[in-house]
């Protein structure tokens, strides 16, 4: 079956700013694979708007994005969203190779 285009809702957790993905049951996950798939943009927008109205404590600035969904994989369409899903593509901290302590 060819990959289908779906929509999901994403934001950032208020507590630590980490990337958040809305599950189908309305809770929020840190893994994009757990995001609840929606059929179209208006549905995603409406859910994001509800979250803005009711879930300020949990989530900052939620919005909908389009994704390829195939089997268990959810793949965003843009580089920005892929990086949000997978983390920075560069080393996270400086190697202290010269320091021997």
């Amino acid at each position: 079956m060819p990959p289908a285009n779906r929509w999901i809702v994403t934001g950032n957790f208020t507590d630590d700013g980490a990337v958040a993905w809305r599950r189908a049951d309305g809770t929020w996950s840190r893994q994009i694979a757990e995001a609840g798939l929606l059929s179209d943009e208006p549905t995603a927008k409406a859910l994001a708007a509800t979250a803005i109205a009711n879930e300020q404590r949990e989530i900052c600035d939620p919005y909908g994005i389009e994704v390829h969904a195939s089997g268990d994989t959810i793949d965003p369409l843009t580089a920005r969203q892929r990086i949000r899903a997978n983390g920075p593509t560069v080393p996270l901290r400086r190697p202290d190779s010269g320091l021997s302590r």
Partner: protein
Amino acid sequence: MYQYDDYDRRIITERAHQFRGQVSRRLSGEITEEEFKPLRLQNGLYMQLHAYMLRVAIPYGLLSSTQVRQLAHIARKYDRGYAHLTTRQNIQYNWPKLGDVPSILDDLASVEMHAVQTSGNCVRNITSDHFAGIAPDELEDPRPYCELLRQWSTFHPEFANLPRKFKIAVTGAPGDDRAAVRFHDIGIRIVENAAKERGFEVIVGGGLGRTPHIGAVIREFLPKRHLLSYIESILRVYNLHGRRDNKYKARIKILVVALGVDEFRRRVEEDWEASRTPELELPDSEVARVSACFAPPRYESLPASATQLAGFALGQDREFGSWVKNNVVGHKVPGYSGVVISVKMPGVPPGDVSDTQLDSIAGVADRYSFGHLVVTHTQNLVLPDVKTSELPRLHAELCALDLGKANAGKLTDVITCPGLDYCDLANARSIPLSLEIAERFDRLDYLNDVGDVSIKISGCINACGHHHVGNIGILGIDKRGEEFYQLMLGGSPGNDASIGKILGAALAQDAIVDAVEKVLGRYLSVRESPDERFLETVRRVGFEPFKQAVYGETTETAAE
């Protein structure tokens, strides 16, 4: 450096307390993210792709070793063990938790630091020359005036909701502007008039971003005592008349162009005449009080450096010799030198320093430089007051910390913004490019041969990497959902200010570093002599030879 008194301390501890209240109201849901956003921005707290980001203010880049140790502690305790030096002489943390930020601010306040107004539509960090106070070509130390402007702008009630951010830079070396004042919203040069009086030349409306622009002089000579009242009038005209309908047309440079320099000046002078009071004048006593904080340290009486430096440069240790040539700068006091610590090295995003490195650097500053350190807008560090005789020992210590690279001002001293790996505003990644450049050109001989050249990379048009004023500038763009890069040449931020010109069509990520190499190859083949720097060659021969080097082969092939 400036010594806080009780007033200064109370100001930042009250601010930290105020923000603690705002955070708890956010976490309790009493205020929404929309209402909280401008508040957290005015305390330097961004929301980026993966996390919050806290930008700590380092006024004109100057740090004490005590402060550096605290920055290391914060990286360790609240973040992921490192921090990032920015292109405006600040430092930022990429992974703080919202609930921890009030404690971070308390920890900063305990060493007289803060994150006030490092973001938001307000007056930001006042930046300056990273060799302020030591440069032989300096007319007068700009740092007291930076500090006076900092205090004036901190929690200024009238200018906390400007149309857009506002950046001020001050230089005290009229012959070589290392603070890029012509590319700031307000740029200030300390000058001397015909009567040998010192005052300020005031430049307004410079900037980068979507519409890069070199600032215009609106006041050729402003007597010192009028500094704050005059700057205030500029801000007021901007606050009242700057555009608020379009975020991309809201900087003061747009207003200056729209009104014309003469009309803009007229409005400033009109407001200044109507609103300046005797109280707003800077009394000599206050200038003296603040200047005293920047009095020279207890320099020893030493012989001049020249012979020693020459000996180092030509000595057996070629790495050390290169380091002396590239990273060590002249000092106005005989026997002393300024040292650039390059934090740039292969595998490390430019500007990143670890907590252990920061702790070690604090010790180095104590032992070699009266406990002082300066963050540069090229994302490096400066030890301002090192005894020339101690350079060999210092170099050895820095090498043991992975901080001894002899590439200051050279090809691999890249400056770059965080880009799409971190930043919510970016269109393309910038750090991978800088890593590839650092890796590919990590040969000392090649670096020295190519000589002085600045590569500046921005991941989007906001230009936080200052790509417009790089000798080689790279701008990441989004083309049909893919990352592409525009290459430009010929930018310069100083007195010879120029905005880089795009060379040709945007290049894919796997082609851009090749293109840089081709440009450098062309430079090496057409320069008049090894003494002709990259920028000079570009200005002499024009863009065509470089364009051909990068794009020309395709055309030739097609013609065949």
